[in-house]
């Protein structure tokens, strides 16, 4: 029979990271660049839309964190099968970003890290902290 584990009820009460759009005060050029990346994700990807907020937090951090490492050229550590799933989505995302946004090629490691951090904040805002989805804090899947 299937294993039944005790449900982690606390996971539904994840803390909010942002109370307003974290990119609201960004300069126009950076904003446009982040928008381009954001638009690709929102139109083509599904990983940012897992059904619960705590799960989305993990997905966004896992995939966007690894995407940043891949774009910068750093080694990515994969220790579990779930990490491997993050990595798979990150590889596809990095490839599609590079193919569509030539300006990424002219950026150094720090610039890439900065823009990916801002993108991560924006995706967290859209899909978790600023989301109008009332089911994100439901305890069950």
């Amino acid at each position, binding site marked *: 029979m299937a294993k039944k*584990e005790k449900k982690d009820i606390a996971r539904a009460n994840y803390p909010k990271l942002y109370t307003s759009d974290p990119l609201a005060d960004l300069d126009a050029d950076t904003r446009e660049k982040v928008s381009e990346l954001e638009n690709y994700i929102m139109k083509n990807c599904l990983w940012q839309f897992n059904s619960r907020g705590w799960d989305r937090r993990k997905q966004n951090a896992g995939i966007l964190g690894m995407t940043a490492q891949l774009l910068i050229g750093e080694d990515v550590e994969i220790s579990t099968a*779930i990490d491997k*799933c993050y*990595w798979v989505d990150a590889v596809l995302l990095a490839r599609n970003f590079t193919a569509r946004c030539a300006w990424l090629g002219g950026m150094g490691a720090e610039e890439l890290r900065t823009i990916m951090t801002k993108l991560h904040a924006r995706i967290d805002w859209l899909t978790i902290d600023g989301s*109008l989805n*009332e089911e994100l804090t439901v305890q069950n899947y």
Partner: protein
Amino acid sequence: MPYHEFEVSKVIPERKLHAVVKGPGEDLTSCLPKGYLNTIPGSISERGCAYCGAKHVIGTPMKDVIHLSHGPVGCTYDTWQTKRYISDNNNFQLKYTFASDVKEKHIVFGAEKLLRQNILEAFDAFPEIKRMTIYQTCATALIGDDMAAIAEEVMAERPDVDIFVCNSPGFGGPSQSGGHHKINIAWLNQKVGTLEPEITSDYVINYVGEYNIQGDQEVMLDYFKRMGIQVLSTFTGNGTYDSLRGMHRAHLNVLECARSAEYICDELRARYGIPRLDIDGFGHKALGDSLRKIGLFFGIEDRAEAIIAEETARWKPELDWYKERLQGKRVCLWPGGSKLWHWAHAIQEEMGVKVVSVYTKFGHQGDMEKGVSRCGEGALAIDDPNELEGQEALRTLKPDVIFTGKRPGEVAKKMRVPYLNAHAYHNGPYKGFEGWVRFARDIYNAVYSPMHRLSAIDISKDDYETGKGFVTRRMLSDADLSEDAKASPITGYTGKFDPIPDLRKKTDYPVFARRVAAAE
């Protein structure tokens, strides 16, 4: 918040929160309708019930199973044969349906004996079938029949049979989606881990949330086999009961319809550590990226690339032929749940149409998040629409074609809007590289049907051209195209009427040496 109030629903003010128009600069923090709530009294919903969601959507596509409803025969009739989830065992699950035929006297005196008798009779009538699912309905739930106890008795009496009990009566949720959830978790709790499957590959997946509509699963299975991947189970289209008992041994859950089946993936992840990978089987780019992701996961991306290259070379020119002719055509994308986001972006990018509205009958806000994100500005997003709202939207949006279920579809036809069946398809399969061209072909045929144009003329009122006779779709679609486009040697889809029989006969799959020789 850009809520949209329908004129016809002003008498139901709560409905205003269930529709939004995506305006300039709107995103998900400002533009999302309510969802997955009880239908507001007075609104004639198009939803199904939780029993329907469990049985009709998820349970019944299992192919080697007697599917028995414990309740009035009407419940069974309404969940029988209305969706084309075919199977490669001569469609047993489509041809036969079973009900305990509960009547008023059983409500008074109980229906457990009746259920037991029906189970035994059904197994006796089909002695080659040893698996059964039983579905609770509103009536038998309310009288408190203990279906699980009866199932246990029968299994003790007949050790060669196995029975799954699904306790999802019609009132068990706001819509069929409540039933999706219940059957996902019930299957996991009752059946997963009760049978050890044979492992034949280094790369083992469960293909989840795939219902083999007109052969979709068989198309995808072909790609997986060409990659040397073992599909341990399909949840549930064309799937077998026993293969689904062995889901716990997969290395990866590949999830197609997250709306109906994410629950079992998430619980398999929590209980067995099997990761969940969401994919899109619709659209050439999305499908290509999906195969690449699965290939990457197992370190066999080259096998995925070979398939993508071959299939794209064969089918992309024909897809582009349709795209040129469907540019700017206005589409209402009104399916049940997941197709609003599976299709919204892909049909705009790869077929050139414009999605002017999305709706979902039973989806959650999570589905609308995906759908609204994948639409362009100006799109009207509606949750749980009623029929009058649908009619008002068709009158104001004036779409060239609508993709929806057959109930609203027939209404649309009467309003002279061509309709394609988004649930059961017109001439599917629509998944796969070839399937996507078949979908484009069906859209083209709907939009440019000369017969449909004639039907829109009211000869008692309208002026119409009496001197114009014969027209074809091609004459209509190519009228404004360039001479080069008109001279194209391509003439649209050139595949077979039904590609599935050839797939079933196919045996020449590559054999890859295993890294792990011993069975797990």
